[in-house]
């Protein structure tokens, strides 16, 4: 069947040539104080963007140390202690200070009000407060690094963390604690904004899917984060003051800590992946020029994921001695939470069917996302399968699986979103060819780094090993080589994004000819976003008006 068989609707030729407004949120006021004390959600986006990029670089640096050490089986590049501190700092920096805030605090902060047709978030000052919470947490995290780091891993398992570990455990815990509060405040702000500040006509089922995803994420943030915050405080109390919560020598129960920790930290995986899923829906629609197929299912699957994600935490404890029957319940629930994710992938594919797919950098990232998310998703099924998890738990299979989801997929979507909305945020166009090249490089580098780890895992190589038996070396070398490619892929966007700020062409309000409230205002937008409150009287993504119902 050829494309010509499809009925065509012609849009009028593009209107005005791209222009950059004279006054916008970036130059509205000037001076450092005007940035550090800003309550404009768009400026706070920039503050977050800079902060989390720094942490991405720090986390990446430690990852590099880890991969370098693992090139040889002997622990020869650094001591075991340095190695353990490196992977711990890598995990803490990446999870608490990059991945959890990544999309919500940057793209979410920028887009939630605009997509709602609002002038700002419901509580602009709380939004600023959340950034300061993040910074306080960041200072503790950096202090931890300067005090020599911690070697507990990002999971802080007791009684190791509370009684046995050396290093700045308390400082690290406080860092994660404050970062957690920044996340709670962001979630709170989003929920209220989405409930209360939608423009006239913007009903729930007219919201872009990104808003649905942010809403679901926010629910997890405000319900789950307090639990991990308290858990970390309990670990701190046991360590600092000798209160017995988790150490059996003090009358505590070490497994209790794992339950509390994963009660948040499993849903936290969805704090990291739901926003990317939302971004993906936006990218698919924009670059297919198509309403997202099965809109209602995609929207509600986000909520379903958020709800079910709270009752699967026990899948991290299959080998901990938890009862066999509890294991079975958690296993079946874990399979269940996979279904809404599958629904999304199938719906995106259906959206592409007979669409008009454009190969620009954001869409290349979106394709990469689907690839990595599929592999990450199906390998999750292995770990949910009780009989297999006994063998695979705490091996490199787990490391590979969660990197495919939390790093591969999440970062692909984050990068895709950043490329898609970069012209809106900065008003500038980057070099699209370089964008496509970086997407391909990261995709290849990522798979070269992490695919060998699946094989290593099934062979039985445990995670967090400083030295390892010689027969694992070949695959470890493959992995380290892949990581080099990956690093190049990440550096490239840093270069052409920076270049675009100075030399890039003006983007104009809607360079991708996409639908959505954010594309109806100038790039960069004015401080108040909309001069006139917009009225929404159509479905989202109405590229072919009236379609789908």
């Amino acid at each position, binding site marked *: 069947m050829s*494309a010509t068989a499809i*009925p*065509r*609707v012609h*849009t009028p*030729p593009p209107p005005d040539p791209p222009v950059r407004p004279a006054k916008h949120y970036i130059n509205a006021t000037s001076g450092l104080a005007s940035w550090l004390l800003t309550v404009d959600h768009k400026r706070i986006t920039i503050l977050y963007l800079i902060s989390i990029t720094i942490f991405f670089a720090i986390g990446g640096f430690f990852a590099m140390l880890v991969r370098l050490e693992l090139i040889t089986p002997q622990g020869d590049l650094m001591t*075991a*202690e340095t190695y*353990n501190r490196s992977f711990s700092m890598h995990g803490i920096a990446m999870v608490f200070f990059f991945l959890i805030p990544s999309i919500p605090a940057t793209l979410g902060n920028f887009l939630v009000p605009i997509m709602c047709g609002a002038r700002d978030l419901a509580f602009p000052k709380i939004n600023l407060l959340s950034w300061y919470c993040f910074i306080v947490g960041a200072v503790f995290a950096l202090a931890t690094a300067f005090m020599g780091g911690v070697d507990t*891993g990002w999971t802080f398992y007791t*009684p*190791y963390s509370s009684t046995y570990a050396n290093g700045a455990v308390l400082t690290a815990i406080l860092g994660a604690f404050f970062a957690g509060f920044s996340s709670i405040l962001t979630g709170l702000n989003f929920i209220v904004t989405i409930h209360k500040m939608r423009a006239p006509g913007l009903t729930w089922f007219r919201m872009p899917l990104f808003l649905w995803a942010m809403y679901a994420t926010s629910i997890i943030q405000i319900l789950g984060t307090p639990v991990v915050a308290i858990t970390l405080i309990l670990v701190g109390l046991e360590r600092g003051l000798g209160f017995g919560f988790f150490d059996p*020598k003090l009358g505590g*129960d070490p497994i209790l800590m794992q339950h509390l920790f994963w009660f948040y930290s499993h849903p936290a995986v969805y704090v990291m992946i739901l926003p990317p899923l939302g971004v993906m829906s936006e990218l698919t629609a924009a670059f297919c*020029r*198509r309403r997202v*197929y*099965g*809109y209602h*299912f995609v929207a509600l699957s986000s909520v379903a994921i958020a709800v079910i994600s709270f009752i699967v935490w026990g899948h991290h404890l299959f*080998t901990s*001695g938890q*009862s*066999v*029957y509890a294991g*079975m319940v958690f*296993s*079946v629930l874990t399979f*269940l939470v996979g279904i809404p994710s599958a629904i999304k*992938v199938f*719906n995106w*594919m*259906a959206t592409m069917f*007979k*669409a*008009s*797919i454009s190969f620009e950098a954001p869409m290349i990232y979106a394709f990469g996302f689907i690839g990595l998310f599929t592999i990450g998703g199906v*390998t999750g*099924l*292995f770990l949910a*399968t009780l*009989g*297999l998890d*006994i*063998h695979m738990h*705490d091996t490199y299979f787990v490391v590979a699986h969660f990197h495919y989801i939390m790093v591969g997929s999440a970062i692909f979507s984050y990068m895709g979103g950043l490329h898609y909305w970069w012209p809106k945020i900065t008003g500038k166009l980057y070099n699209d060819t370089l964008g496509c090249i970086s997407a391909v490089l990261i995709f290849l580098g990522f798979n070269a780094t992490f695919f060998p780890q699946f094989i290593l895992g*099934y*062979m*039985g190589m445990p*995670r*967090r090993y400083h030295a390892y*038996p*010689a027969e*694992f*070396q*070949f695959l470890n070398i493959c992995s380290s080589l892949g990581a080099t490619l990956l690093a190049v892929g990440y550096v490239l966007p840093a270069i052409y994004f920076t270049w675009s700020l100075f030399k890039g062409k003006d983007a104009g309000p809607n360079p991708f000819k996409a639908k959505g409230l954010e594309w109806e205002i100038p790039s960069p937008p004015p401080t108040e976003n909309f001069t006139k409150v917009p009225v929404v009287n159509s479905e989202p993504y109405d*590229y*072919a008006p*009236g*379609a789908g119902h």
Partner: protein
Amino acid sequence: MWNFPLFPDAASSMAGQVDALYFFLVAVSLFFTVLIFAGCGYFAIKFKRVDENFIPAGQKDNMVLEVVWSVIPFFITLVMFAWGAVIFFRVYTPPEGAMEMYAVGKQWMWKTQHPEGHREINELHVPVGRDIKMTMTTEDVIHSFFIPAFRVKKDVVPGKYTTMWFKPTKVGKYHLFCAEYCGNQHSGMIGSVHVMEPADYEAWLAGVNRGETMAQAGERLFTRLGCASCHQEDNKGRCPTLKDIYSKPVPLQNGQRVIADESYLRESILKPQAKIVAGYQNQEMPTFQGQVSEDGLLQIVAYIKTLTKPDAVAAVAAPAAAAPKPATKGGNKK
């Protein structure tokens, strides 16, 4: 590094079953991955944008389609679940009459002990073809006892016993890893499991083993710590007899019943007040927390086990996980 296997040795009765399930999942995963990759690739080429102004027609959502692609994966995952659960249950349910071995984790070594009394460090010698049940704990932090070639793993947790079992099927030397991060020398907490022909095993054990069995050592401790002064043959109601209690239900003062497995015996010694035997609420047993090492505790437990006639054990060798069941039943009645 040029000798790199891509698949682990399979050396236990469980390995084949786990691998079969693994290949089933690999097949299903490959099917869906190829389907999605091919679909996206095909659509990407076929529906590439050629005309800048072309707007594709909208599609109608199809409820049937949505249900189909939710329900089919769901049923496939149910198969994975059921198959996985069966294997899980097998791996964590030690068979009756298994040979008993003991392991204590400690930063950063594995101390193993044979019932005959021989101790090893970072090594475990076992005969091929025998069911072997491990009873394990740790002196400090959580570790995890992992033998990839057997496809089994179990965390060892301070303050309690965890158990697992395996049946080696191939003579050879296999890795023993600590899988749960436990600090500085975590990756040094590795050793080997030596699977031997039964005759070789007997000969090896006879060669290395000197001194008393675990039960004899336990009996000596039992006397030295003064347990014997209360728990005598003719205890005249002062305290319960320890004869024939192992793996049997014990009625508690609060109306519940627990199976007297290793963990219960351990708790009875360290925290006697946690579960009080029915009829003995007025008799205090002192706690022995801090007075016995983990090794010593295992020896006492091994000794108490010998007080139970073997046929009596077999009758009630319920899975450890099933133990709480009768307990909760009683508890719910209240």
